[in-house]
């Protein structure tokens, strides 16, 4: 009863066909509440996505050319990277399995991943198992500081060697 009594004046003020003032105010109130809740949710979500990430840089030095012996494959443990040196020059290949990111291990005829049994050949090509991509190779360059630098953002085709002109005996710049 009380509610009907309250509604009377509001309906008289409003347009006969359109919404009453009460309906309008209640509706806008709900809309504002929803907008605030959505805004707070979006803000909270945005806060959780970091602006700055810690972690190893994508571009890093791996050592002087002389640190790598001729015809060797060096596992740079902290970088999850293999550096290969032969007559053709230097090559850098990822040690992270392309299936789900475990570190692959060296075997006699290539590499295998202990997590789900993916197998790769000597140049990181697919042999068997669940991986669908070969191990990526990265650009390797000799910088003015005399060190070889690897850039994980720049992939090169498998088996790419660079800096073949560096002599085997040259002991690191």
């Amino acid at each position: 009863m009380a509610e009907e009594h309250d509604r009377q004046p509001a309906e008289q003020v409003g347009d006969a066909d359109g919404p009453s003032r009460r309906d309008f105010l209640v509706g806008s109130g709900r809309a504002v509440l929803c907008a605030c809740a959505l805004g707070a949710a979006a803000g909270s979500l945005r806060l959780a996505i970091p602006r700055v990430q810690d972690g190893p840089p994508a571009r890093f030095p791996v050592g002087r050319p002389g640190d790598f012996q001729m015809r060797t494959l060096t596992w740079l443990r902290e970088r999850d990277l293999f550096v290969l040196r032969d007559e053709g020059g230097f090559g850098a290949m990822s040690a992270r399995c392309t299936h789900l990111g475990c570190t692959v291990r060296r075997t006699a005829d290539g590499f295998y991943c202990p997590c789900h049994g993916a197998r790769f050949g000597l140049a990181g090509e697919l042999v068997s198992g669940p991986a669908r991509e070969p191990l990526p190779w990265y650009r390797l360059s000799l910088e003015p500081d005399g060190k070889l630098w690897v850039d994980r953002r720049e992939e090169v085709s498998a088996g790419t060697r660079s800096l073949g002109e560096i002599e085997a005996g040259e002991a690191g710049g």
Partner: protein
Amino acid sequence: MSREADEPHLRMRRNFVFHVHPLRVSEHALNPWLTLGLGILTGVLFFLLCASGALLMIYYIPSTERAYDSMLDIQHAVAFGPFVRALHRWSAHGMVACVGLHLVRVAACAAYRGRTLNWFIGLALLASTLGLAYTGYLLPWDQRAYWAVTVSANLLDHFPWLGAPLKELFLGGERVGQAALIRFYTLHVFVLPVVLLALLGLHLWRIRKDGGLAGRPADDRLLPAWPHLLLREAILVLCALAVAGLFAALVDAPLGGRPDLHHPSNPDKAPWFFLWVQEMVSYSAPVGGVAFPSLAVLLLVVWPFADRGERATGRWLGAPRSRWLLGAVVLSAAAAFASLEWAYLAGEGCAGSHPDLLNPASGMLVLAAVAAAAAGWVDRSRRTALLAALGVTLVAVVGCILVGLCRGPDWIFYWPWEDWPLVG
């Protein structure tokens, strides 16, 4: 008023217990084979998890540098530390099992009929439980924890367009590190328990609003909840506490070595309730890690809408004819899984031309669809079709857990009686 004086148990009217239970319960609800007490067991284990978790929080430090050391403290220097940690670990495993079985029970008894909202609250509770189990798995910061979470987070890369932002949100970076540890910790000790508790309240409230256990017969007698129901529940709760305590006292919770962030163990296995995903992703990440779980979730989401025809509820698997049919479906699914797995393991090394299509997980997906169509057609029942699909899915999950348990170094299959070779 005089009645309350006559029957002392009615003085408990204002008690919490009688907010959850009615004063009088149907005789039908007293049958322990109807529910197997799985909901109550889940609640007991959740209580144990909160209590033991709060105690562990006193010593645990969520920092990549100190987390593992604090685990060693709990294991070796804290009074009752190993017991409380084991209680927490095994209660978590038990809770995942009870929630899963509870879901199967509700599906098999069609107890969701007319209770669609509570079915979805239940699914959200299952998701929260799995989220708690998953986030808790990282916290010890041992070798297993680090690599299990690394691998599963990388699974998100295979989800179309939502995967990468979600991974960034959960890990706070590209790889599992300090940012991920503190996020998992916050979710594990605050966000998810609060969500779970709120959902649990809703879940219990809806059961009462919907009239207690589903499927009450029309001619059923009403009995006082005390002692008929409450005594049975009290016995179940005490037994559950005793079993959990005894188990935790006898079986230590494993703690791996200090994590080596550049060298996974061989093999490195997830806990059993995620092991089926790990086994399936070893066939194919898009099928085992994305398609199969997504379709399983889809089945559960459409379930209460798809089953619109039959009214019967609150009885295991309905008519005898449906039971025989579903039994046959499950048995043939088990046989099919064994054959698929045998063919796959025998053919390993010579990868087929379509490894994402030709593997046991994809095979079981197809079989689930075929079994649902066939069983639904034979029984003229959508409910039987849904149950057949669920049956095949469960066979695949349990089968993959069993095969996963048999995986040795290099993810090679070894029978339980075979010795693993020594590997570096």
